[in-house]
Every structure is written in structure tokens, then in C-alpha cells.
């Protein structure tokens, strides 16, 4: 009997091309399991962002099959996508904050979309902004925030609704090392205490060492390699607990 946990995401021979250009992702087949912490690495242009777009449902694949939370994305009507998207938390590469909303309202968005009442929104968002050190900037609009502050708002927005899967595209690129570590601890807390599956795209190799239980997927020219056994079952962490590559 197969005792594997139900997968969060399953890619089967997936390819992606934009228009008539050559494929930017080819023959991707892998499975993401609940409660795992994945790093997605690769050089610039390797296809990390394209793969993340498929994961956070901004793009449909050109070929292949994708299942997410047990549902077939290829045949799923678009009316049902919001339900899946609400289970995801996404830190976009360029943050993608809503420009006319304050930091508070940006962070509150996922909760409001899910129908949370104002009292609970107020408490949750205030706590989260306080924790990322932006309580004093709660009423600032994104244009008046620094890059690092915008990134922290984006991360707070991504985790505020306690997503089943957190997808982050270079989430620590604009913050200082202390804040980067702190944000990683937040991701780990979600991963360990809530069971959130975390996928972090980064080209910062130092970051990989900070999360001992993490698994590494490497993209090269649109192809996925499995140097550490992350894509096998049971997945093998990239490094033993306690650090070291």
C-alpha cells in the first residue's frame, strides 16, 4: 500500500512556452508534498519565475498535466481558480502591491477577499505589521515605502491568511541580512507549526544553508534537475539538520 501523503502539487511532463517562442520550461515532472520546504534555484533566465507562475496559477502550461490540491488544473474552469488561489500565499518578485492601498490594506487584502470580519482583520494585520517592523508605516502607500519595506509588506500579505502553500520569488532580495533571516524564520514557522508547504525561488546559495530541512530543486535552461533527491519519495533534505551543504 502506498503510504505517501496526498501531494500538494504534481507536475507531469509539463512544458511552457510564451506565444510561438521556444519552450522556457520543458518536461517538468515532480511532486510537492505537504509540509515540505523547497528551494528553487537556478541562474537568471533558468525559468524559476515561469515555474512559479505555473505554481501560483498566473499561467496555464502549454502542455502536460498539473494537479494541485488534488484537482486537475488543466480542465478546471477559471471560475474555480479563486478557491485554489486563496490557499496560496505569493511573494511576487516585484512585490506587486496594490499602489493605491496603504500597507495595512495591502496586507489585509487576502483576509478581506476571504470574507474575514473587520475586527479580526485589524488584529491580524496589526500583529503582522508589528512583527515585520512596519507598524509605524501601516498607513503609508507603497510608493512612499523603501524597497525593503515593500518586500516586507508583500511577505506579510502572502502569509497573513495562513496559506496551505507559500510561494516566494526572491523574497529576501531587497532586505538586509538580519531581516532576511527573520523572514526565513517566519517561513519556517509556517512550515513547522502550520504545515505550510514553502517554495522559495532564490539564487542566493547562502540562503539555502539557513533552512536545514529544506529540499532543493534546480532549474537549468528550463529543465529540472534533482541533485539532492528532493524530487524522490520520501524526499531527502538537501542538508542534514544543523546546517552544512
Amino acid at each position: 500500500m502506498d503510504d505517501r501523503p496526498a501531494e500538494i502539487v504534481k507536475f507531469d511532463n509539463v512544458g511552457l512556452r510564451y506565444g510561438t517562442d521556444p519552450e522556457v520550461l520543458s518536461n517538468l515532472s515532480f511532486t510537492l508534498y505537504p509540509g515540505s520546504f523547497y528551494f528553487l534555484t537556478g541562474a537568471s533566465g533558468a525559468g524559476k519565475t515561469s515555474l512559479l507562475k505555473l505554481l501560483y496559477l498566473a499561467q496555464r502550461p502549454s502542455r502536460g498535466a498539473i494537479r494541485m490540491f488534488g484537482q486537475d488544473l488543466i480542465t478546471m474552469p477559471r471560475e474555480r481558480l479563486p478557491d485554489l488561489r486563496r490557499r496560496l500565499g505569493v511573494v511576487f518578485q516585484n512585490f506587486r502591491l496594490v499602489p493605491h492601498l496603504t500597507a495595512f490594506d495591502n496586507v489585509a487584502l487576502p483576509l478581506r477577499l476571504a470574507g474575514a470580519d473587520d475586527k479580526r482583520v485589524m488584529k491580524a494585520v496589526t500583529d503582522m505589521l508589528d512583527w515585520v517592523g512596519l507598524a509605524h508605516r501601516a498607513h503609508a502607500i507603497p510608493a512612499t515605502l523603501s524597497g525593503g519595506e515593500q518586500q516586507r509588506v508583500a511577505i506579510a500579505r502572502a502569509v497573513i491568511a495562513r496559506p496551505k502553500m507559500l510561494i516566494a520569488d526572491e523574497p529576501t532580495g531587497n532586505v538586509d541580512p538580519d531581516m532576511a533571516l527573520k523572514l526565513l524564520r517566519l517561513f519556517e514557522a509556517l512550515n513547522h507549526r502550520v504545515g505550510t508547504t514553502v517554495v522559495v525561488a532564490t539564487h542566493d546559495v547562502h540562503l539555502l544553508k539557513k533552512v536545514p530541512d529544506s529540499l532543493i530543486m534546480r532549474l537549468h535552461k528550463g529543465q529540472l534537475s534533482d541533485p539532492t533527491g528532493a524530487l524522490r519519495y520520501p524526499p531527502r533534505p538537501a542538508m542534514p539538520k544543523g546546517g552544512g551543504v
Partner: protein
Amino acid sequence: MNTAAPPLPYAPDAAEAELSVAAASGAKAAPLLPAARFAGPIPWVIAILIALVVIAAAGGLTLGNLANSARADLSAAVTVQVIEPNPDLRNQRGAEAVRVLTALDGVRAVRLVPEAELAALLEPWLGAGAGNGDVPIPALIDVELTGAAGPAEIARITAALNAAVPGARVDAQSDWLRPVYDALAALQWLALGLIALVALATAAAVWLAARNAFAGARDTVEIMHLLGATDRQISAVFLRSVLREAAFGAVVGAALGAGAVWLLGQQFAALDSGMTSGGGLGLADWLTIGAVPLGGVLIALLTARITIALALKGML
């Protein structure tokens, strides 16, 4: 920097998730997007279009009332002319015609129009000497029937008169106004056509404005989608904005149009003409005119809803 353990974020429970779609179209959707304002002139364009429709509708209704009033006044009226150059014979035949007509069934009243009254009627055309006998004027008899003066009635009266009054000519008074009725009907159709064209123009203006508003907010809409917003949540925000601006335009346009109609009404009332006095607007007419801005808002909402729905369908 806060170094405490990160707070576990709040998670909406399943019940809330179930409610989320319902909440989507309500107040919670309000802060999700910027007030998707149309380009500045759109409410004023709607106001002008609504004002035109109000004026056209009032004009059409007035013309309808005018025609109905004239038709009602004249529908039972018949004119009998006794054409005879000899005045004595004319008077004699006129009296005979009155006798025959009075004895007929279906006749309510018969009045031989006095010669002085006829002369006064003709004076504007024939001058002060119209009644001096130089120009033979037919004897004229006003007949009011109990029912409508249809072709059968006219034929019956003609037959009754022919034997006793040779040369008598019977006309339904409404026949004289038939070309006027036709012209009024044509003007009514013109008003209806104008209303239809303006409704189309309103829809086109809203379509363009909604498309522009959507294009301007496309990036935000995309973010909202990726965060789990439903099409209903997004379109509710746009529709709220459309409703606000269309309602503003409709109210201003209705006020402008009603003001113009009222002024025109005062001008025509000052004419003190029997023809125009039947064209006043009643309560039902004003209620119909009051429905014009409501119709305009509905057209704007429907157009915007379709436009936004189509635009959203083009997104993942």
C-alpha cells in the same frame, strides 16, 4: 526590529471561506480597488444624453396627447355644407337639412352656423366684405353624433340628406385633420427613434469608459485575481463606480431635460391656442419621463457589467 517568534497568521475558517463569495459583492469589496473613475466628462456625457431623451420623450408624449385630444374632440363631429349660390334657396335647403338631420337616429346636436359667424371665420382670407353676398358662401351645419363619425355613419347621413337637400356635402371633421394626425404620428416615431439612438449612444459611451477604466486598473485586477478575488468581487467594485457616476449623470440630465420641457410648456401655454392646449403632460406622462433616468442608469449598469465580464473572461 521585533525579534519575537513570528505570529501565526490568522486563517479564515471554512465557514468564512464559504461566505466569501457572498461577501464579495457586498461592502467588503469596496476597498479592494480604487474607485474606478470614468474619464472626467463621462457623467456629463450621460447627463446630456439623458436630457436629450427626456426632451424627446416629453415631445413624443405631448404630440401623442395632442393627437388624441384633437381626435377625441372631432371624432363625433360632422360638417354638412349646403352649396347653393341662390341665398334664398340656400337658406331654405339649410333649414330642410337641419330638419332631416335632427330627425336622424344617432344625432345628438345640430347647429346651423349663422352667416355672421361664417363671415367672421372667412374674414382673414376674404376680407371685410366676405359676408356681403358677393361671394356665395355655403350654408354650414355642425352636427354632433352620439358615436364616432365613421364611414358608415357618413354614408347614412349622406343618403338621408340627398333626397331632401340636393348638393349637400357631408364630411367627418376628423378627416380634415388626417394629414395633421399623420404628421404628428411621424413626429412621434421620430422621437422614438431619437430615444433609441441616444440609448445606443449612452451604451457606447459607457462601454468605452468601462473599457478604459478596466484597462487602467488591469494590473490591480490581475493582483486581485492572483490573491483569490472572484470575478464577482472585481466587477462589483467597477459596477459600484459606474452606478455612482451614471446616477449622477442621470439626475443632472433629468433635471436639465425637465427644466427644458417645463420652459417649452410655458412658451406653448402662452400661445393660448386650442390646438396646443390638448398637448399638456399628465401624471402618467411625468412618471414615464421619470423612468428615463432610471432606464439610463440600467443601460449603463448592464453595458458596464457585460463589458467588465468580457474583459475578465480574457484573463486567467
